[in-house]
């Protein structure tokens, strides 16, 4: 395994709706090292959602290659991609995407249900979910349903869910987009903790204040990388 967790080369994506072909990505090349914390920015229509979908193995590029953790995933079948998402990627969404009828623990356990490699018993699944919830500071909220939790707490449940299969990378899509400033800072604290513990994180945001938490900021414009710079003035944890 190389130093780079993610290597993308000449990545392009074309959406063809009837006669019109829309070029969402026009040849992007980049690499993300293990343990790196990268923010992706750009105006709407810049292709950052498309890039995240491809990085998250939810979509396949039209051309170019995507090597994740030493494996070329750009041409895998739907089933294989589902397996890659399950084992290597932890998603954090803007709208949390928790199932309302399940308790926090049951929500966190969801990825384990689809993990065919680890044959865990129900009890082991539950224990791992509780451990994950404790690690995001929600050890007391294991049996609460999403509607009994605040927005910040719901996002922390979602982060616990992203961590449960020990993924290679955490993909966060506007993780603080639905939160107030106070909750946003708490979530970013948590993201910093994960980073400190060695997680690789790629985060999409349009808020410069949030992007400032990252080590490196990639700026997309019209489907191409406009800038890719190390974040010298990186914000420290817990300071606004």
């Amino acid at each position: 395994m190389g130093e780079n967790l993610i290597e993308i080369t000449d990545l392009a994506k074309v959406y063809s709706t009837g006669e019109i072909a829309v070029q969402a990505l026009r040849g992007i090349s980049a690499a993300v090292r293990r343990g790196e914390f990268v923010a992706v920015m750009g105006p709407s229509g810049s292709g950052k959602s498309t890039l995240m979908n491809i990085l998250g193995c939810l979509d396949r590029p039209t051309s170019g290659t995507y090597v994740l953790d030493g494996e070329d995933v750009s041409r895998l079948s739907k089933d294989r991609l589902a397996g890659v998402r399950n084992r290597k990627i932890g998603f954090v969404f803007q709208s949390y995407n928790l199932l309302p009828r399940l308790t926090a623990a049951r929500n966190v356990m969801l990825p384990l249900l689809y993990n065919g490699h680890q044959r865990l018993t129900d009890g082991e699944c539950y224990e791992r979910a509780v451990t994950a919830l404790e690690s995001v500071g929600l050890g007391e909220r294991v049996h609460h349903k999403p509607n009994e939790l605040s927005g910040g707490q719901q996002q922390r449940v979602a982060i616990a869910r992203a961590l449960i299969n020990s993924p290679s990378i955490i993909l966060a899509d506007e993780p603080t987009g639905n939160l107030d400033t106070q909750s946003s800072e708490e979530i970013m604290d948590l993201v910093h903790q994960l980073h400190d513990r060695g997680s690789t994180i790629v985060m999409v945001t349009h808020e410069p204040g949030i992007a400032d938490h990252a080590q490196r900021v990639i700026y997309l414009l019209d489907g191409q990388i406009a800038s890719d710079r190390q974040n010298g003035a990186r914000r420290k944890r817990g300071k606004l």
Partner: protein
Amino acid sequence: MNLWRTFRVAWEGLTLNKVRSFLTTLGVIIGVGAVIVMMAVSAGAEAEIADQINSLGANLILVMPAFSRGGFGPGMGRPPSLSYDDIGAVAQNVTGINGVSAEQSTNQNVKAGGTTLEDVSVVGTTAGFPDVRDYRVAEGRFLTDEDNERTYKVVVLGHDVAQELFGGQSAVGQSVKIASTKFTVVGVMEEKGVIGNTDYDARAYIPLTVVFSKFTRARFGGDDVRTIYVSAESREMMDGVMSQVSNLLLRRHDADPASPDFNLITQDSIIEAQASTTETFRNLLAWVAGVSLVVGGIGIMNIMLVSVTERTREIGLRQALGARPRDVLLQFLLEAMVLSLIGGVAGVLAGVGGSYAFNELGTMRTEIVSASIPLAFGAAAAVGIFFGYYPASRAAQLDPIEALRRE
């Protein structure tokens, strides 16, 4: 994901909306119940008919007048096509028979001492009756040809009628009043019980000619013999007996062989005719029940399509978390199958219970066909798979990106 866990996820999906799940299941319950009840009803009807036919006796040939063309014309006012004398002629001239008789019943009050039995089935018949029906007297004698020729007012009582009128005493030699006429009891029949829907023990037998003269004479054609029963000695002799009877009656009636004024009917031909009508009946019922099962299946498909649409976002999330298309397919297919199988179990219970209820309440004779239970249950499972597959495959083919974006 293993099957058990998928099943639990499917179960959770169903309990999310219990009323809706129940109502959807109801369609299958009714369908499966209908299959079982309908099959029980038609089996009951067949058994009823078989009993009635068999109760006539073995190797029986029925001679019936041909339907007159009716209306005005040459048929008007012609003599009855079968007469009392035909019975004697058949008895005397046809070989290979056990007996010949005719029956004409009328309901009358029967009185003896202080006891009155209302609406007793009084059957006018001839001396051949015990041989035709294989039904003997227990005490005294049966009616004779002389009784008929001289219209003696004599009666042979069924077992129960004798018991009720005379208790433990011997009935023979006593007199009874049928309607307003006094009859002398000459015999009591052995106990025979209920066959088909005829209670033999609750009847009384008097000479056929007495019925004609006392009870049905007033009506037009009251001395028409409606049916002559001829009992052949064996099954092999049936054809010979039939042609003898046919030739004899053609000669006696001076009738045209091409369009005789009577018909010969055997038990076999009745059974055949009944079998084909009951088969039509059974097929019709099976179709009706099958259609209701399909309607139940369409209900499942409908609700599963709604469910897939409502839970698009959940499907997208599960896909993002690693659910393969086949995991999603299985989850929704199992939901549809759980609905239909619960419907199947409840429907079997409802169908069996309903069949019993019909039988017990006496509205209809039903016989539960044991094959109908696995058949109905299997059909329910098949309906679940068939109608659940389309919504499930729609769910499985959802694009996770689109699905996650859906509100």
